[in-house]
């Protein structure tokens, strides 16, 4: 056989796994990044391309309270759905032990939701002695800084 004759000219019979490993690592990293984003709650059609909202890294934190209102009939905190009258207790429990300046509830509401529904949620929130509300909105890329 030809193989046995020349020692230097052997065909390399190994499969080159480097590209495959690379692709696997890519997928791994992508999923590592995407998974926590997906778990943050229900998906809401936020108001887009707003010019002046302030960036607030606290929104992404696990400890912050975010009320999501994806449509006219549901309220969510995290991934759990709650009826309107149960919202207050949940918020109260989550707010326990927070300093006054950290007592802010974020509202993620869809653009098509009636303002009245949002007001109902805010009304429930303020019954827990919270007077600061963060209305979550998408900032336009490269939007001008607030004057």
């Amino acid at each position, binding site marked *: 056989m030809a193989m046995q004759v020349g020692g230097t000219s052997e065909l390399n019979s190994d499969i080159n796994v480097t590209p495959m490993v690379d692709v696997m690592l890519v997928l791994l990293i992508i999923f590592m990044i995407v998974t926590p984003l997906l778990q943050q709650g229900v998906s809401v059609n936020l108001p887009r391309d707003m*010019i002046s909202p302030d960036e607030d890294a606290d929104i992404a934190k696990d400890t912050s309270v975010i009320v999501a209102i994806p449509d006219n009939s549901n309220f969510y905190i995290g991934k759990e759905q709650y009826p309107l009258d149960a919202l207050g207790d949940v918020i109260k429990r989550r707010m326990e032990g927070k300093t006054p300046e950290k007592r802010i509830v974020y509202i993620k509401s869809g653009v098509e939701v009636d*303002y009245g529904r*949002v007001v109902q949620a805010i009304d429930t929130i303020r019954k827990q002695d919270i007077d600061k509300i963060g209305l979550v909105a998408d900032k336009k890329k490269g939007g001008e800084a607030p004057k």
Partner: protein
Amino acid sequence: MGMSTSSGGASPNINVTPLIDVLLVLLIIFMVITPSKPSRFEAKVPAEPKDQPQVNVKPNPLTLVVAINKDTKAITLNNEAFGDVSDTDKLRDRLTEIFRDRTNNGVFREGTNEIEKTIFIKSPKVVRYGDVVRVIDAAKQAGAAPIGLQIDDLQD
């Protein structure tokens, strides 16, 4: 067999495939991370009205109330019309003007030395949330702070 004779020699080319792969990973990571910078408008909510005998509060002449009409979606600022929710530029310009005048004239919030830039937003319940946020955005651009949302006695 041809194999047995030619030794081939080491290929002098650098294998760039892993390098490109790693760069693509980085590209994808940054594409994923960039849009996830959350931002929000801060709004104040008046305290719940207590069951107390109505106290006559002296109306503040500096109060700015932005209202949205439920049918025409027109915006009014202290009952003067300024465009509608699809075009909030007029409102923004007017508010900027008001705040500039106040800065020049030194109009301070009562008991403090901050310029009075409080704004209240009043909207009927049937208005889309998106439209209300557009108005808040306009007010914020003009520099209004704090922004208050009226919660009680809204019309349907």
